[in-house]
């Protein structure tokens, strides 16, 4: 068997383009992924026009004042601001492509906000660009508008809560620069109760009794007003519960997906190609005369393809770890997961190779089979109809991509299910595809 491995290594060494790709590929992918995951998303260029006069940028609500910069800063944080002098310039910028959108805050924005509340205060957004950029800008601005609205409504809720406290406990309210003393509901109730105690006649009770009853009832339920206000500020609160295992951050999961994908392609293409090459060059018949058993040929191809893919993806993981924070203390688990996954993918590769008559057909078959399997394995639960999802689950379980992804994700990120379950799944697939490949070799002779 070692002579077969040596022969295949010699063939690989002579395929300079293939070896070059095997070396360049992990470096290129690791670098690209690293930059993609470690750099912030590009901010869209948006023309910005704030027409609110500086002396009217503050909303006065009683004693409190809110500067609308709180609102606009929230929006500006998500865009690359292109200042313009007027609305025409803003439109021109968008038309000429100097900006993908324009954000115009009208002069009466602060006034309408203080007088009519949120619904009457408006800002104008002018869009341009292709559908993808438009969608990106639209979703960015919409999300930031929602965040700014929430921030503003929070401030107004706090103000309103202050007024309710004054109405309950007493104090003073500033209206147009004049301070008005407020007795407060609690003090009013105490005074009514005192009058009723000093003059407990039937007439007084008849006249003040209902007032006292209302005052006590209002005091008893005063807490609801603040609760309602806080509900308006944040109507729905999201409570996140993870049912099992550790959640993997998206960038760390992306690393696992990229590594698994690379491992799959290198393994499957190399293994299928090496097996199909024996048939294409008619050498299998020569070997099958008892020089080497079919099983030994398959094992040799599997090990060589797995070793090459293992080296490539391990280098890739190390490269990515320069950009993305990966737990290097788990490197032993990386090696185990990569090794198990590589052998499983390589066994799938030799099974594909045993079906094909030539290398090109094997490569095409490997691509055609591997890509859909990878995509299917990434379909999330709830993304499709339940029955379809069950079918996808079965298909994913029959091929090694999902189990390999679980093993690598568990090794790199400590996600669930654990690495042992995934490796056991891969071991079963190795046996099944190994048997399929052995059966396929019979057709070679």
């Amino acid at each position, binding site marked *: 068997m070692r002579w077969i491995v040596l022969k295949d290594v*010699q063939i690989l060494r002579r395929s300079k383009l293939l070896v070059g790709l095997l070396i360049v590929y992990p470096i290129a992918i690791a670098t690209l992924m690293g930059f993609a995951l470690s750099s912030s998303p590009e901010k869209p260029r948006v023309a910005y026009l704030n027409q609110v006069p500086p002396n009217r940028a503050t909303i006065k609500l009683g004693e409190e004042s809110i500067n609308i910069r709180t609102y606009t800063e929230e929006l500006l944080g998500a865009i690359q601001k292109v200042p313009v002098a007027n609305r025409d310039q803003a439109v021109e910028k968008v038309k000429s492509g100097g900006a993908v959108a324009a954000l115009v805050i009208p002069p009466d924005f602060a006034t309408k906000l203080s007088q009519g509340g949120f619904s009457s205060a408006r800002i104008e957004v002018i869009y341009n660009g292709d559908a993808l950029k438009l969608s990106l800008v639209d979703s960015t601005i919409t999300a930031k508008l929602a965040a700014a609205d929430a921030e503003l409504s929070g401030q107004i809720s706090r103000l309103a809560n202050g007024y309710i406290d004054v109405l309950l406990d007493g104090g003073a309210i500033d209206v147009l620069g004049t301070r008005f003393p407020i007795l407060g509901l609690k003090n009013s109730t105490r005074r009514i109760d005192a009058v009723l105690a000093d003059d407990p006649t039937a007439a007084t009770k008849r006249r003040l009794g209902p007032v006292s009853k209302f005052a006590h009832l209002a005091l008893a339920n005063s807490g609801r007003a603040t609760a309602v206000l806080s509900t308006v500020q944040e109507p729905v609160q999201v409570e996140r519960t993870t049912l099992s295992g550790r959640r993997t951050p998206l960038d760390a999961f992306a690393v696992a997906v990229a590594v698994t994908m690379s491992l799959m392609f290198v393994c499957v293409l190399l293994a299928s190609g090496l097996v199909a090459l024996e048939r294409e*060059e*008619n050498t299998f018949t*020569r070997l099958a*005369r008892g*020089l080497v058993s079919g099983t030994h040929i398959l094992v040799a191809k599997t090990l060589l393809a797995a070793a090459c893919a293992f080296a490539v993806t391990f280098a890739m993981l190390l490269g990515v770890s320069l950009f993305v924070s990966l737990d290097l203390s788990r490197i032993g688990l990386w090696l185990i997961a990569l090794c198990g996954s590589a052998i499983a993918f390589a066994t799938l590769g030799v099974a594909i190779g045993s079906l094909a008559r030539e290398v090109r057909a094997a490569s095409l078959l490997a691509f055609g089979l591997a890509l859909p399997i990878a995509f299917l394995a990434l379909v999330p639960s709830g993304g499709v109809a339940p029955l379809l999802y069950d079918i996808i689950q079965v298909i994913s379980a029959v091929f090694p991509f999902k189990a390999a992804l679980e093993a690598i994700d568990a090794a790199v990120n400590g996600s669930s299910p654990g690495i042992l379950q995934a490796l056991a799944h891969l071991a079963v697939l190795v046996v099944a595809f190994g048997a399929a490949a052995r059966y396929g070799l019979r057709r070679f002779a």
Partner: protein
Amino acid sequence: MSVAASAERAVASLVVAGVTKSFGSRRAGHDVSFELARGELLAIIGPNGAGRTTLLTMLAGIRTPDAGVVTQQGPNADKRIGWVPQQTAIHSKLTVAQNLRLFARLEGVEDPDAAVERMLEQTGLQERANDELSSLSGGNRQRVNIAVGLLADPPVLLLDELSGALDPNAAALASPSEDLEQAFVNFLRAGGH
């Protein structure tokens, strides 16, 4: 399909008895029997699709017959039968020497390097030893193909369409292939193909 043999010695090296092979309803060989003695030349002839290659692959041990047996006899009965397939069965990405060395090792030749040197000399390809097979002409590739079959000095050599890509005038292989080729050329001249 018919079998023509020229017996030179009486001791059988290869005994084929009642070999039969079918692929579904298509019969590729039925009850083929003959004996081959050491030094004997045997030509298997027949029209296209008669089952000549199938018979040879059964003799070489690549295919298993549906019925019948193939037995090696004599002092070298433990050695593997030599096999030169119709289409070149060598690795085009390896050099001539690498191909010969690989098969010498797989055949279990005691001194693979010496066997490689011997075959390079016999095929006249010493100067092309380090050339990749893909850079060789069809005729030279066929020489290497034949040389691989001769590497282990087999007691019986099976040649499937030997002259496929060879230049008859330039064939300079040493014994025993020189004799075999000459016998084959003579056979073709006799119009028996």
